[in-house]
């Protein structure tokens, strides 16, 4: 007797039924799992249809890409007038900075990008040196470059600065000035000396309690009254003072969060090896606390960058201000000009803020040691 058939190799595995894997199953599980889910999907499709389709049509399909004046963007079915942005791009980036001197602004932008990259990329060494460069050397150097009037550079008044330049100057100075102030205020708020503590709390709560616009009004209208005769600040500097005071209060709260996260043992250890208060803070506590709050600092930078758009209300021309001002140019007055301008400005702000928020998320995950 012999066995008629013996299978010598295992049978090939059958593919899983199409109802449990593949695109159909995915659709069924994620979009059509229940009646309620189906309704949600239909609502979502309707939303996409009524928002994304007109937006794409306006921004790309019907858009006008080239042209010398408003004639190009007139017509019944015209979308975004990118020719307007193209013609005004120089103004949007540099304001009315003299064309021949724009290389100085470019150089500052370049230094900013390189410096921030050196700070932001974890693998690049010399963090302490580059941080010092970006906090002290870079602002001084940029000021000399931008303002000029020395070392053979032509003087460019701050009234001629504008566009993205003013946006970046105001937000960068705001954050750089607010770091040391914020550290002092945060330490003051946690201090055991009653007067210093009260003063810090009052200062922080005062600035955090009022809207930025009143702070800007204050610095632009009230500040000149407080100065002695003959001393006057220009408009940009006044705005900078307001922004710096305002953001230092927020920064203080961010840094206080970092200080609170340092375990008590660190303070006690530092005292046990005989360090004084400032030594303890400088060598032990602040390096750890500041590292912890990097995401918080980036987040306050994001909100500060968005808030700088408010300076247009006190008559400075930041990116939004200069876009807004160009709507009045009779050469480019069309029904779509304002929408195009807002789309452009919004896109620039969005790219800056979104990339920074991604970075802050990344740092948060990197610094979070709890899951390891």
């Amino acid at each position, binding site marked *: 007797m012999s066995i008629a058939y013996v299978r010598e190799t295992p049978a090939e595995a059958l593919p899983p039924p199409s109802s449990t894997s593949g695109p159909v199953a995915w659709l069924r599980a*994620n*979009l059509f*799992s229940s009646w309620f*889910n189906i309704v*949600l*999907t239909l609502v*979502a*499709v309707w*939303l*996409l249809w009524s928002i994304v389709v007109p937006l794409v049509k306006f921004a790309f399909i019907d858009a006008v890409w080239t042209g010398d004046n408003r004639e190009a963007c007139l017509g019944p079915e015209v979308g975004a007038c990118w020719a307007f942005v193209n013609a005004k791009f120089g103004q949007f980036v540099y304001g009315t900075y003299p064309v021949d001197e724009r290389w100085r602004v470019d150089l500052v932008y370049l230094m900013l990008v390189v410096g921030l990259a050196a700070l932001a990329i974890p693998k690049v060494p010399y963090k302490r040196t580059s941080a010092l460069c970006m906090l002290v050397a870079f602002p001084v150097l940029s000021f000399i470059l931008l303002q000029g009037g020395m070392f053979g550079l032509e003087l460019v008044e701050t009234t001629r600065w504008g566009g993205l330049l003013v946006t970046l100057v105001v937000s960068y100075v705001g954050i750089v000035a607010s770091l040391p102030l914020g550290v002092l205020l945060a330490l003051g708020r946690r*201090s*055991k*000396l*009653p*007067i*210093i503590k009260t*003063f810090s709390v009052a200062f922080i*709560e*005062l600035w*955090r*309690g*009022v*809207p930025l*616009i*009143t702070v800007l*009004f*204050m610095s632009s*209208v*009230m500040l*000149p*009254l*407080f*100065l*002695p*005769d003959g001393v006057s600040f220009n408009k940009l500097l006044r705005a900078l003072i307001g922004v710096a005071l305002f953001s230092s209060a927020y920064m203080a709260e961010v840094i206080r969060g970092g200080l609170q996260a340092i375990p008590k043992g660190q*303070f006690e250890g530092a*005292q046990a090896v005989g360090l*004084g*208060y400032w030594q*303890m803070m400088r060598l032990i506590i602040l390096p750890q606390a500041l590292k912890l709050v990097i995401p918080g600092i980036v987040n306050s930078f*994001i909100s500060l960058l*968005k*808030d700088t*758009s*408010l300076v*247009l*209300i006190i008559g400075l021309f930041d990116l*939004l201000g200069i876009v*807004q001002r160009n*709507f009045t140019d009779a050469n480019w007055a069309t029904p779509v000009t*304002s*929408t195009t301008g*807002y789309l452009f*400005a*919004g896109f620039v*702000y*969005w790219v800056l*803020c*979104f990339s920074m*928020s991604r970075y802050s998320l990344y740092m948060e995950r990197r610094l979070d040691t709890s899951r390891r």
Partner: protein
Amino acid sequence: MAVQNEVRAPATNGGRSLFYDPRVRGFVFQAALIVLVVLFVWSAASNAIENLREQNIASGFGFLGTTAGFDISQHLIDYSPTSTYGRAFVVGFLNTLLVAAVGIVLATVLGFLVGIARLSPNWLIARIATAYVEVIRNIPLLLQLLFWYFAVLKALPGPRQSLDFGFGIYLNIRGLFLPNPVFGPGSGLFDVAIVVAIVAVVVLARWARRRQAATGVQFPVFWTSVAMLLGLPLCGLAVAGFPVTFDMPELKGFNFSGGVGLEPEFVALALGLSLYTASFIAEIVRGGINAVSHGQTEAANALGLRGALTLRLVVIPQAMRVIIPPLTNQFLNLTKNSSLAVAIGYPDLVSVFAGTVLNQTGQALEVIFITMLVYLALSLATSAFMNWFNLRMALVER
């Protein structure tokens, strides 16, 4: 100062040990701070007095009683150009409160919807909610307000070509027009019914809680409350014979008359503020729900609670504990952000008072001081509430 080490600083005589005494140092630091602040304030004040005298600007708060002489497009209380600056201040403040209240309600509703949508198992809905949050959150509010006002509402057709949303709701370049309910005689019964319903709900909830604590028997408080809150006022109306009529907006000549007309500035501000704040609230809601650990849901399921009950009795109470403090913070932010009204000409506190009144009187010090004080009071009241809430809701740990 943190080196509170009295033992290490023995009372050896000599200047050196005095210098290293933390108490002496603390005293010196604080004295120095006081001297600095006093010097700063004194020089600022003397400069200000000097400058004011030179520029012939009056000082003091007497200007609040003088005639304003300008009109305000939207006023909740009687106001005319012959009213005083003080009254203009109140009008502006009420307008701020109005737009803040409307914005807070809209932002909360939308924010909760979007926050929950981000956690939806429906892939498409979750993605749309994420896109909404990431786009709106990363664009300056001022830009959004200007966009809604100048690019959308100011580009709408005139009254004759109004967008018609049905139910007597029209939108055009003059603003948003809604039907206005008019309560005829006998609708006092309606108000009474509402008050009675609220009182009854409170009493019922207390009674139900006490009974459940004593006997364990539950009572459907929620649905009874809804039925009473809706039913009693309806009954009141029915008894009075439905004296409510709707005043519909109608196109007469070149503009609408009747109904409630909302100014385009108000619409733009409320829309922009609520869309912007909703994106932040959505993140808070998502974070709050995520903060309730999955073990809680599983434990609730193990006890035999079904989906809706798990949400209502286990997840939401714990999530709300996390959500409410940052939520009140967002409400405060929205109120402060309503000051951006000045950019689109909505007559809020900053626009009316720190704008027009300041320009007319030139009394920058007083005007800015009052404006800041109002916002400061609002924010201190909010943080007082938050502290009270945190104390009440703090987890009682072993």
